[in-house]
């Protein structure tokens, strides 16, 4: 911290930050819960217990349950490849990992529709064989995977670069096989960062709107996720219902934030231990 800054500078900066935070975060959050309970607690529960809402909740959790483990595998594989091997096109791979961050989610959804929709070659073949991807659950899972796959790799690559591979080499000379090295040496060192990446994946999978919106087809009770369901309710002028469902998403967000700060603290501690050792 710069001790030369006069107190009023510090106070102004902190004040501006807090005011901004309040305006864009706290006020809307309060508004969500306020609107959700506008017609009373009974109406709130009715909106939540609505079969369409429950179906959307189930689908959202299903998509997250598929996206999280798959991202764990993809992220680990990508981070391992980038940090442990030298190969042609490595920089290109690192750039490609970031692609979903750079592309608008709507575009990525659209690409899946063009690629796998019933009018495309692959989609036509799939439909002929009785597999529906677009306007069905597989499409939603694909779109979600696309927008979430950078998170884990992005968390792991810098950490694994910093740690180097000497521990793995030591384990190899001691007779450990590839799987044992991964489970006993690598995984314990990166577990908090991995979990942190997965928390981010989970949050994004639950909240994704754009990409999923394009591929879902908005079939109520079948292909609606929670964010899509909120939009539908809102468009039907069911304001209280929309906000009740939105409040569920807010609760997920708050749980994510709590998990995220615990993990950040754990990672900091692990990093400090690493620094103390070298």
């Amino acid at each position, binding site marked *: 911290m710069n001790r030369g800054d006069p107190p009023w500078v510090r106070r102004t900066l902190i004040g501006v930050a807090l005011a901004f935070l309040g305006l864009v975060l706290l006020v809307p959050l309060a508004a969500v819960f306020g609107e959700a309970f506008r017609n009373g607690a009974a109406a709130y529960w009715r909106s939540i217990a609505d079969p369409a809402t429950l179906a959307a909740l189930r689908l959202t959790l299903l998509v997250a349950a598929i996206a999280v483990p798959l991202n764990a595998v993809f992220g680990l594989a990508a981070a391992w490849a980038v940090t442990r091997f030298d190969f042609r096109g490595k920089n290109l791979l690192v750039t490609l990992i970031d692609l979903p961050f750079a592309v608008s989610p709507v575009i990525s959804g659209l690409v899946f529709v063009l690629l796998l929709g019933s009018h495309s070659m692959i989609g036509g073949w799939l439909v002929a064989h009785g597999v529906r991807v677009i306007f069905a659950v597989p499409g939603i899972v694909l779109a979600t995977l696309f927008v979430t796959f950078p998170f884990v790799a992005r968390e792991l690559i810098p950490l694994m670069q910093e740690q180097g591979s*000497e*521990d793995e*080499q*030591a*384990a*190899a*000379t*001691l*007779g*450990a*096989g590839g799987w*044992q090295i991964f489970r*006993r*040496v690598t995984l*314990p*060192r990166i577990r908090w960062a991995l979990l942190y990446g997965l928390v981010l994946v989970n949050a994004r999978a639950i909240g994704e709107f754009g990409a999923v919106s394009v591929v879902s087809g908005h079939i109520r009770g079948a292909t609606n996720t929670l964010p899509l369901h909120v939009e539908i309710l809102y468009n039907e002028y069911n304001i209280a219902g929309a906000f009740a469902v939105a409040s569920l998403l807010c609760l997920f967000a708050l749980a994510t934030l709590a998990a995220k700060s615990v993990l950040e603290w754990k990672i900091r501690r692990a990093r400090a*231990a*690493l620094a*103390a*050792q*070298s």
Partner: protein
Amino acid sequence: MNIRLEHISKHFGSFTALDDVSLEIREGELVALLGPSGSGKTTLLRIIAGLEAADPLPGAAIYFDGRPLDVRSPAERRVGFVFQHYALFRTMTVFENVAFGLRVRPRRFRPPEAEIRRRVMELLSLIQLESLAHRYPAQLSGGQRQRVALARALAIEPRILLLDEPFGALDAKVRQDLRRWLRNLHEKMPVTSVLVTHDQEEALEVADRIVIMRAGRIEQDGTPEEVFHHPRSAFVMDFLGQVNLFHARLENAHGEAALTRLRARPHELDLSLQAGKGTSLRGRVRRIQTAASLVKIEVLTEQQETVVVEMPHDRFQESGIRLEDTVFVRVKDARVFVEDYSI
């Protein structure tokens, strides 16, 4: 175990790390690979360990006990490897670090838990760290960590122990203690060992044999006495300790002359206040350093070259030499290398 390396080369891109190296390491020997950084010594060690593969050239081969070693993983070679920066598993206790090599064995070969405990505690007592078995590596000093790394490598009963600059990250005093400790350990437990170092003092003190490397090749291979007293090249002599360089003209009985360079170690020179038989250079005393086991005297010669002379304290007292005195240098012993001739 006996190890034979034949015609080993290794290139990293256009860089030649090893250039046709052949070397034999005999059962129970402690060999030091000594050389400046970039001389290929660590690469050679990593190839023996299987952490790196030699260039697949015809004739290149590694033999363990006379049997050719094909492309095999480090695990199958049963080599103990000690890294410069310890590479201890920070998420495991000292005990679990040492036990690691036993626990990862396939079930058929894995000793029962009680046996693992006994073996680990035996090794911890060997490195005198039994009381710290339940500490984590971050809670140990550098010297303690390196001892744990050594115990961990010994736990798999390696056929050969490879040490990559094991004391490089430690401070001078700890280094000296560990060096002596390693030598004693080797006497107690004569595992064939290869030690990589760039510290000539370490190599001279610890090793049975020293292999001096330069730019991917073996420059000289011999006992510490041989390489120190009979260096085969100017490089070896320069690398093994301080050297005074003199430009000289050699003449034979027929009056033919050749220009050359003469090399002498500081203890191979003597100083006196009077010119006498055999004194050749005159200079002025610029610096006297007495805070060591030998007195070190720096002399600036009339040719404006600095000469360093070392002599025992009693000899220094006798000579009566003081700062800024004019002195005469006598070369008691010196060496000429063929590469330095220009006729």
